[in-house]
């Protein structure tokens, strides 16, 4: 990639660690910072950053992995749709292994269900064009980052008259669960590392409420080790000084208002709806539903029979997603629940907190 080398320079990181440690020493308690973006989870774990922080700073992961926060009944519905005649279900790859109540997309695929992995909703639209006699249903999950391309595919299907292209709406937006997190009595988050990719689309101003309504600081950061450590240092300074503002440390790509073209496309196709998050329950205005004009493309309105939703016994994904516990505190972690046999959703995607911990944070114990 074309990122500047200083963003990965160990000397730059060492200097930032020194700065973080010196501020942490002045604090009389541990400071809890949360990242809420799967790519941050992955980047922190991949570079081993958590291990470099002083004890006074705890960096936890929030509900930033789109696969992980997708509730089990969404998958149950996707599997039921795949059983309909002349229907193909298209999905992003990392939903494949997430356990549903009774199975998973991967298992159903092996049993012959017409389920296809695509890299983009456009691929699913192309499939619908090429197979006019089949109904092609795209599983529309993700955050603000995937919503514009899904909206664009819907708009293109409309103008192109591709009547057999539908989606199962499951997109979510970040600010509402963050409000839940700062209101959570069980969890005390001192500051947020705000998601870089999401902010490119939304702009950073949508996170102002954290600082203004709740006096919790935030820092929009990129994904290199130096970006992340600069964010940690910024938040720590703010906490130590009793300040709270939203710092945009990713100004090379993030603006206050974000990408208006993308926002307009999303607003044309989607509207805010209440939706359920794994670990949080239903949160008002936290999902994107299709506007009534597009109801004929809403596979969620198709009547299918669903099994009673079943969450695996003992699975603590909900607490992990809210940052209440770290993965090793879950009794299933690295025992019954491993990346090759995930029990909970957080162990599935490489962005999942548990998978990232399993793969990158453990330095003792057997690897397999």
């Amino acid at each position, binding site marked *: 990639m074309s990122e500047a080398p200083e963003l990965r320079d160990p000397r730059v990181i060492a200097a930032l660690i020194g700065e973080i440690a010196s501020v942490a020493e002045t604090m009389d308690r541990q400071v809890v910072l949360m990242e809420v973006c799967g790519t941050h989870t992955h980047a922190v774990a991949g*570079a*081993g*950053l958590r291990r*470099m922080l002083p004890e006074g700073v705890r960096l936890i992961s929030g509900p930033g992995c789109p696969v992980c926060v997708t509730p089990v009944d969404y998958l149950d519905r996707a599997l039921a749709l795949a059983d309909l005649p002349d229907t193909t279900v298209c999905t992003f790859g*990392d*939903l494949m292994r997430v356990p549903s109540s009774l199975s998973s997309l991967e298992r159903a695929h092996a049993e012959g269900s017409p389920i296809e992995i695509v890299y983009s909703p456009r691929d699913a639209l192309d499939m619908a064009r090429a197979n006019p006699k089949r109904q092609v249903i795209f599983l529309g*999950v993700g955050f603000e980052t995937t919503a514009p391309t899904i909206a664009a595919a819907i708009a293109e299907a409309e103008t192109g008259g591709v009547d057999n292209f539908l989606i199962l709406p499951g997109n979510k937006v970040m600010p509402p669960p963050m409000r839940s997190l700062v209101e959570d009595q069980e969890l005390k988050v001192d500051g947020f590392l705000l998601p870089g990719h999401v902010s490119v689309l939304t702009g950073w101003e949508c996170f102002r409420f954290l600082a203004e309504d709740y006096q919790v600081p935030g820092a929009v950061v990129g994904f290199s080790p130096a970006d992340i450590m600069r964010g940690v240092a910024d938040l720590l300074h703010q906490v130590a000084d009793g300040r709270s503002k939203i710092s945009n440390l990713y100004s090379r790509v993030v603006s206050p208002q974000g990408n208006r073209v993308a926002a307009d496309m999303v607003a044309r196709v989607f509207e805010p709806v209440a939706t359920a998050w794994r670990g949080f329950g239903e949160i008002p205005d936290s999902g994107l539903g299709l506007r009534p004009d597009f109801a004929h493309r809403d596979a969620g309105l198709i009547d299918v029979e669903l099994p009673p939703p079943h969450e695996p016994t003992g699975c603590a994904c909900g607490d992990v997603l809210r940052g209440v516990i770290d993965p090793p505190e879950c009794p299933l972690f690295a025992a019954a629940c491993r990346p*090759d046999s995930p029990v909970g959703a957080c162990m599935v995607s*490489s962005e999942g907190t548990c998978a990232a911990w399993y793969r990158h944070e453990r330095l003792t*114990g057997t690897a397999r």
Partner: protein
Amino acid sequence: MKKNTPRRLLLGHGSGGRLTHELVEGTFLPALNNPILASLTDAAVLPELPPGRPALTTDGFVVDPPIFPGGNLGELSVCGTVNDLAVAGARPLWLTWGLILEEGADGELIAACAAGTASAASEAGVQIVAGDTKVVPRGKGDRIYAVTAGLGVVPPGREISDARIDAGDVVIASGPLGDHGATIMAARHRLDAGSLVSDCAPLNGLIESVFAAGIDIHSMHDPTRGGVLTVCNEVAERSGKRLILSETAIPVRPQVRAVCEVLGLEVLGLACEGRVLAWVHRDQADAALDAFRAHPQGAEAAIFARVEDAAEGAIPVVMETEVGSTRPLDMLSGSDLPRIC
């Protein structure tokens, strides 16, 4: 295209009758020309083996797409088997070549793969001495699958084994890692990966040149499926030693990193089809690196890991990250699935 190559494969091309005969005589024999194969007897009767211990291996090839930048399934079917012999310390001699073709497959594709098989065999200095062709009904296979078996001989006095790996060894990669896997994934997803091509190549020439330079290689592996992650974890398990990789020393092309970024793949989980990882004692590290780099296929060789004794309960394979931290390296779980964002 050879004038006798069929335009489309028919079920009859696998029937053993006239069409099979035409396919073999018209397409395969001209490409793979050698007297043992040309005798078309039920079994290839081979000359006596040179001194040493015989080594035998087999491998199946099902790559999609079958023709990719830098190679094709035919070349791969030779390189894969030649390399499995070579990393065991054997000198590859003879291969068999079995084809499972899909009814309707493009004759030119089959001819191209036969030509690739021939050129790779020639480069490796091996002969294809026996073959078989089957055709399955349309939809029961994907154009072309190949299975090869290879016979070679480990010369007297050569001992390549994970049991010889010890604390104090270093690990050399013969070239940049992941080129093949990234090329295939980019082709499959129609990504423009620029000048990136598969590393698919026979390794026996390179490996023999390193032996000829007097290097005592303790063990070797070719990081094919599962990539470096799988090889390192398997080696750690078998040898009981700990491997420590240095992120900054791992040779990876920028295009390969870019493909991984876009598709959400793990670089070290990508397959190579023309790279060898070699374990040598650190006292021979510089000499070994020079020996690898003296051969055109090893020009970009690098030392990227070291071996230590494993403490009780320690994770067996770890990476020192570029920012100065460490993290464990596990095998991939299942197939490496693309991430959402």
